[in-house]
């Protein structure tokens, strides 16, 4: 890019920025967001008791709708990759193949490292969970709008910012860990898993708290128009991208670690060497 092109790009960028700023300040008085108080918005972000989305006659939270959308997007992507990309895989990988292999290899390696005794399906589970958490959280950035049952428009939150989604993920992961314990050690595996009874709650609320906090801060920032310049870029990166990565990493790491722990075969007991009795020892010394 030469100097002239750089100059042109800068001018275009400046014009777009000025137009956006003008748009923000001119429309701030008639903003739909200010029809609701910030308290209502915050409360709804936590409890999801105001805005509902109609799903074939069932009223669902926007988080669940986001979950369906994530599944749809990932399904389409997986089908396209399966049909058009995977059959063209080469021994020396290209860029996209490298990314896919890196992703699958990472979760496969994580499962094999943390659970060397039983890891056949665990890699697939943590792969799916990691991809779901990451993609679902990143969906927040796009601000996809849905119409609620009240006729209002809301942007889709992360699926796991919904307490029901977070509970599902925590409890499913716990049950999955227990299934590994049963498969490897039978009843002993169940006992080993039940020892960590707080795990589903801790995993669920860790996810819920982390993703909700990001959503709340983002909502708060967007609520006030004078904060919606530049600040959302930092907030979006801090609370969305980093949370997407960190929470996906934390949950998959925890699941693989606990799965490996409960599926570990019991160690054989060491035989105790009986100490010679005092009398016998005395006789021997005499």
């Amino acid at each position, binding site marked *: 890019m030469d100097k002239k092109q750089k100059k042109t790009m800068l001018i275009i960028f400046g014009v777009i920025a000025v137009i956006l700023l003008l748009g923000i300040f001119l429309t701030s008085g008639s903003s739909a967001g200010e029809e609701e108080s910030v308290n209502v918005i915050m409360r709804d972000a936590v409890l999801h008791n105001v805005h509902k989305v109609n799903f074939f006659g069932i009223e669902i939270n926007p988080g669940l709708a986001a979950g369906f959308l994530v599944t749809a997007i990932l399904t389409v992507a997986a089908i396209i990759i399966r049909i058009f990309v995977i059959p063209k895989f080469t021994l020396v990988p290209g860029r996209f193949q490298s990314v896919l292999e890196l992703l699958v290899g990472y979760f496969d390696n994580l499962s094999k490292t943390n659970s060397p005794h039983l890891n056949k399906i665990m890699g697939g589970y943590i792969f799916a969970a990691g991809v*779901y958490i990451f993609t679902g959280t990143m969906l927040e950035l796009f601000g996809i709008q849905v119409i609620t049952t009240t006729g209002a428009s809301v942007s889709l939150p992360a699926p796991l910012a919904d307490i*029901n989604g977070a509970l599902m993920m925590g409890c499913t992961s716990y049950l999955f860990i227990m299934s590994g314990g049963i498969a490897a050690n039978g009843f002993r595996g169940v006992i080993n898993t039940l020892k960590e009874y707080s795990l589903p709650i801790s995993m669920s609320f860790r996810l819920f708290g982390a993703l909700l906090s990001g959503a709340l801060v983002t909502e708060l920032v967007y609520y006030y128009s004078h904060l919606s310049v530049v600040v959302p870029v930092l907030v979006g990166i801090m609370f969305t991208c980093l949370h997407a990565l960190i929470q996906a990493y934390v949950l998959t790491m925890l699941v693989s670690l606990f799965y490996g722990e409960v599926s570990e075969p019991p160690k054989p007991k060491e035989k105790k060497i009986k100490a010679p009795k005092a009398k016998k020892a005395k006789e021997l010394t005499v």
Partner: protein
Amino acid sequence: MSNLPLNINFTQIFLHLLNFLILFAILYFLLYKPVKNFMEKREKTYRDMDDEARDNLKASEEKKAQYDTKLSEAEAEISQMKSKSRQEIEKSKETQLQAAKDEAERIVREAKAEANREKERILSDAQSEISEMVTDATEKLALKATAGEAFDQFLDAVDLAEKRGSDYEQ
């Protein structure tokens, strides 16, 4: 159900679960498993190539060892043949030398025998000549000279004959 704290709703939890299970199945069968299978297949391919290369290396090392053994055997055989041929040459040389010696001895022996025969012949010739001369001298003495002269002539003739005989012997 809706009275649970934090607006927890079991219907929605099950819907979330159903959604996630579908996603898990799709991602597992369409993405994770095929990619993993491909990676394992590629790993196997490279491992096979590595094994094949190792086998080839081992086979070539074995062949090299075989060739080295054969080479050392051939060298040993060559040196053995060399020593054998050297021995044969020595033997042949000795035989030829012995034959030459025998031939030389035979020639010397034959020469000696020939010389002896010649000597014998000369001696006999000299004796017969002496006897003829003696006879001649005796006849002459008896016819022409005195007894004293005849006796001296006789002695001279004898000395001459002896002298000749000794010359022949030498």
